[in-house]
């Protein structure tokens, strides 16, 4: 089996309320998948469950990574396998600098000690790619960061930690035009390595122009209701989701806000 990630019949609940109602998803090595859907559909829940967020209960189904069932794997064990999630809303951790945090996690992930100087150099390169100034490394993780700095920080972490499967949860929301371009280019560059796979959640077409997904999945009310290729993305971007609701015989939603 050549799939890097396989999710089958995944049902997820919070406080006995089922948020995901039987998700199937397969992501092969080198593939880029986009997950689209209106707010509250369950996109973040899916990505977070794949990362084993303890607030979500996996009530049914299986998750496989590189052919291995990882249902019982803890979050850090999944990270060590090479799974990575950029957070829609990254958390603030006071008292820990970006640099210290990343060096500690890098050592933890690779099991190899990296000298402070060597790491500094590597970090500096990645920060330049993202147009982050040097002081950024000294600042406490996400504390007092602007929305853009937080999002760029997630991409920086991805670049430094170099995972195999990246799940990007709205990496482009709330960014200005320049920042969207920089983030898009950095992600596209990262994915030019054909051993990497990606699941990207987004409402915008700009990032998709660089990242070029191979597949699209539409998630509505906890179910994947439609799948397709680039043409599906285009149609959703032009028309929203009501035409899909219509096809499915669901009630239409007016004035849909796509962010």
């Amino acid at each position, binding site marked *: 089996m050549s799939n890097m990630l396989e999710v089958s019949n995944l049902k997820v609940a919070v406080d006995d309320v089922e948020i995901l109602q039987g998700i199937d998803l397969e992501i092969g090595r080198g593939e880029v998948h986009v997950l689209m859907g209106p707010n509250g559909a369950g996109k973040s829940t899916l990505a977070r469950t794949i*990362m084993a*967020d*303890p*607030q979500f209960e996996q009530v049914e189904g299986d998750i496989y990574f590189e052919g291995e069932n990882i249902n019982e794997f*803890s*979050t*850090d064990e*999944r*990270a*060590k396998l090479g799974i*990575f*999630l950029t*957070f829609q809303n*990254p*958390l*603030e*951790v*006071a*008292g*820990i600098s970006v640099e210290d*945090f990343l060096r*500690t*996690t890098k050592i*933890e*992930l690779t099991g190899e000690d990296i000298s402070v100087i060597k790491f500094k150099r590597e970090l500096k390169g990645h920060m330049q790619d993202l147009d982050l100034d040097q002081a950024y490394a000294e600042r*406490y*993780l996400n504390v007092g960061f602007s929305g853009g700095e937080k999002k760029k920080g997630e991409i920086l*972490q991805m670049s430094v*930690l170099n995972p195999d499967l990246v799940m990007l949860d709205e990496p482009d929301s709330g960014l200005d035009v320049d920042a969207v371009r920089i983030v898009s280019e950095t992600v596209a560059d990262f994915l030019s390595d054909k051993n990497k796979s990606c699941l990207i959640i987004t409402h915008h077409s700009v990032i998709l122009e660089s990242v070029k997904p191979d597949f699209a999945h539409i998630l509505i009310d906890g179910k994947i209701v439609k799948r397709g290729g680039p043409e599906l993305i285009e149609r959703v971007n032009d028309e929203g989701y009501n035409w899909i609701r219509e096809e499915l015989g669901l009630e239409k939603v007016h004035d849909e806000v796509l962010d």
Partner: protein
Amino acid sequence: MSNLRSNLTSDHNVKQLDTERILAEKAAEREALKESRRKERAEKLKERTYVEEFDRGVYDIKNPNTYEIMLDKGLNEEIVREISSIKDEPDWMLEKRLAALEIYRELKNPNWGPDLSELNMDEIATYIRPKAQMESNWQEVPDEIRKTFELLGIPEAELDYLSGVGAQYDSEVVYHNVKDYLALQGVVYTDFESAVEQYPEIIQEYFGTCLKPTLHRYSALHYAVWSGGSYVYVPEGVHVDIPLQSYFRMNAPGAGQFEHTLIIVEKGGSLHFIEGCSAPRYNTINLHAGGVELFVKEGAKLRYSTIENWSRNMYNLNSKRAIVEKDGVIEWISGSFGSRVSMLYPASILIGEGARSEFTGITFAGAGQTLDTGAQVVHKAPHTYSAVETKSISKGGGKAIYRSLVQVEEGAYGCRSNTDCQSLMLDAQSRGDTIPTIILKNDDVDFGHEAKIGRIDDQAIFYLMSRGLSEEEAKAMIVRGFAEPVAKELPLEYAVEMNELINLELKGAIG
């Protein structure tokens, strides 16, 4: 300071070559010694096993309880007289002791704060003299006692980054030394008994005037049975550029330690004083009721750093107080770890215009512990400034309470005071609380108070774990980050020690 040092060398130019060779030899010797101690320490640290509460590694080393003198348990006039006579004290000191004993008898335990009913003075030996003389050379300190201090890393610290060290074992100081170049400038650093003997006028003038025996029951007790401690004198304009440290070690079970620390920094002088404390774990109750009196004169600056790491059988009822004159600065850095109960509220009395007090503290309460700590500031003069920043951590059902007083007197206009206390609970059983008292007697005060109590954020733990950190490491990182404002105020070696203590506490107790 460094100026003076280079003058000293150039005056002795002739000897320089020889000195260099000797210094190089000494350095090599020192390195070898340090290496072997480091290994031994590492071994000890590895030996930790998790029993009962948990093993605190080197801090838990128990020496056989051999001593030269151990007075009967309990407290009465006879015992107080005996302590005084053992020390061969002048009459005025004995009188102060006896007066304090009277006060102790009249005072009750405080009717607020942690429960002290378990503490029974009839079960506490107030004076234990170790089998040792006061030395100024570590090699002369008896093996077993020296070993303990070596494992705690004290002699190394002296070699590496201190300008003077005092070490107290049970009731008496066993080692005291200060670098020559400081002594040459008139800096005095000695055990308190020697100070009483050598500087009677000064001690008589200052002793008990900052921290009064009437303050509370355990300060009265302290003055009745005090033993050991340090005296530091920094003359006008002298800057002690490298910290001095005192280390207080309690070895005997069922005992009390009552060291007295008195520091005077004269006009325009400066000093960083570090105090470390620890004791092994016993099942009997131990009591620590030290007394610290600090006198900061006009334009002088004193930083007083403490890391206390008591065993869980300790009642730590310590009193610390500073009087700060015009434009003087007191900085408190305080780390409170261990103990069964701690009540510790260092106070700054700002009596001169423009005087400043800054307090930075951290408290960690684990299972079965109540750490009731905080800071007090009394603004008695105009344009005085105070800042308090505290962090409390509670875990496994522990209670960490921040209790504070800020008082601004009538004539003290134009004062500024700012308090920021944060409390982090690591689980649902633990308790963090803040109990501030604010008394403002004039309205020309720029006053701020912020308190934040919160539980450790599961989503933050998830976030860190998603980057590959284990749950334990993720928690430790959050706690370390929480403690960072305190750690960054400490010299590197002590910051490292504090982080080790935090890790130990996180790993240790149940839950």
